[in-house]
């Protein structure tokens, strides 16, 4: 027996043409009778209708007509109170009776904290549907994290984006360089949640290929901050290949999630080392 309360939920869908039946998830409804909870979250922009159009207004009116009082107007993300007395029966009625522009999926059940479930459904089914494979991790994000770490020591200028390293007659560009004239760390960032995984794999391969020359020339440490893929399948193979290539040539590989810790550790170590040398 689970300790979590039993919740029921439906996904609210906008179906522009019920004959073609191509629904778009625009909201989630969660009810939890034992917690007297009723909640909904909507993202009407997922309907693809321009916010100022008459159809958008009609969509809002329709949702209102299902006793869901949406605060505000033309908001991208809307919270709405759902009557807490609702149970699965009301969700089933909505599912059965609403077969036109707005539809409700057959009620499903979950053992979960209702507000948390509502947030999860909103993020998984409504908000991130189209962007599930996209990434928020990039060179810029990593640079910001490193600058914040070095800012504590008033050494923000040690973090250089798009750093260039000259090896004989060749110039190589890297995402980040950490140094004060002398280069201590060279960092590349990769995300296996990008759409174009071929390019990501190539970038990783390039880094592993040039690194021995760069390391020999500069004496710097090589780091790879990498966001692993979410999907099972080919992306995992590419990820494994790239991290293996990097490790084989002495590049230290870290999960992108560890960027904060890595940045703080490097800042601490380097600045302590430098202050010791200047004593």
């Amino acid at each position, binding site marked *: *027996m*689970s300790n*979590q309360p*039993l919740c*029921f939920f439906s996904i609210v869908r906008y179906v522009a043409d019920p004959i073609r039946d191509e629904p778009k998830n625009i909201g989630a409804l969660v009810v939890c009778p034992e917690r007297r909870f009723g909640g909904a979250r909507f993202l009407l922009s997922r309907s693809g209708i321009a916010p100022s159009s008459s159809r958008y207004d009609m969509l809002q009116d329709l949702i209102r007509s299902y006793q869901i009082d949406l605060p505000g107007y033309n908001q991208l993300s809307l919270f709405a109170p759902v009557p807490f007395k609702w149970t*699965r029966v009301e969700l089933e009625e909505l599912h059965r009776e609403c077969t036109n522009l707005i539809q409700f*999926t*057959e*009620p*499903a*059940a*979950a*053992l*979960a904290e209702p507000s948390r*479930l509502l947030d999860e459904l909103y993020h998984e089914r409504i908000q991130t549907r189209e962007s*599930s*494979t996209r990434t928020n991790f990039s060179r810029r994000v990593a640079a910001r994290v490193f600058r914040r770490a070095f800012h504590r020591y008033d050494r923000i200028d040690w973090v250089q984006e798009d750093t260039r390293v000259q090896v004989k007659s060749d110039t190589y560009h890297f995402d980040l360089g950490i140094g004060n004239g002398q280069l201590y760390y060279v960092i590349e960032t990769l995300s296996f949640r990008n*759409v174009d*995984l071929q390019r990501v794999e190539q970038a990783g391969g390039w880094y592993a290929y040039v690194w021995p020359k760069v390391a020999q020339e500069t004496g710097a440490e090589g780091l790879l901050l990498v966001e692993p893929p*979410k*999907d*099972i*399948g*080919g*992306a*995992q*193979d590419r990820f494994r290949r790239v991290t293996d290539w990097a490790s084989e040539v002495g590049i230290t590989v870290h999960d992108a999630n560890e960027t904060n810790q890595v940045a703080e550790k490097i800042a601490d170590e380097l600045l302590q080392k430098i202050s010791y040398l200047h004593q």
Partner: protein
Amino acid sequence: MELPQIMTLLTQLEADNPPRTQAALLQYRGGGGCGAWDCKAVNGLWYVIKCQNNRQDRTYGLPWKVLTTELICGRLGQLFVPPVCPPVCIVDIPDELASAVIDPNGEHPSAGPSFGSQRVDGAIETKAGGNINLVPPKQAARVVVFQTWLQGQDIAALVSHDGSGTMFLSIDHGYYLTGPQWIESLLTAEPSVSLVLLPQFQGQVKLEDSQLFQGILDELTSLSEIDIIKAFAGIPQEWGASVDFRAKLANFVLKRRNLVEQAVSTLWRGVA
């Protein structure tokens, strides 16, 4: 390894508890003959699950054919590197969750152990029109060998939704081994293996190359017998497959292994 040894080993392995998780969310999925459910488990992963009262298994009664075969084949698929199918798991459905949902026929899913195959994002089933044109031939060969080894029937695969062919995984193994129901005579007869090929691969020139298959055939023959037999252990008691019966199944699968190469060679020998 001979049948008595397999039986002894399986009996010993029964003491090991296989990994299982618990359902936290259930939503009817539909599609297919089984009436599957989407399930989010307490481990945070999504599974496509088939319950004990699924429509296909109910037709023939215990031991549950679809659930048992799905779990065994899914585990066997994980022995390859990389795996040729999504990870599988036993997913326990709590009573309160089972009684809270109904399928379109008004029936509740059975509580207790169900079969779960981890849901794969960004993929589409070949039966639903998934495009396999860009699947690399080597990846295709891996799935052909797997499905041939385990006597696939009603075969299907998942392929990248974007048509890039970067993902290609075998799924829906409920009718593998002996078809929709158990046929014990097949398990004891001298095995015969014939090529199993997705309809989309029929007549594809790119598969008519023995070199493509060499790696995966080598991998298949080098799988350890013990690892293969482990796939037949720890099947939920409620599914009704005794150790004796599973030993025969394991023996059947082990014997088939050496005949796979001959079966797939029909592709490049121009017989298929």
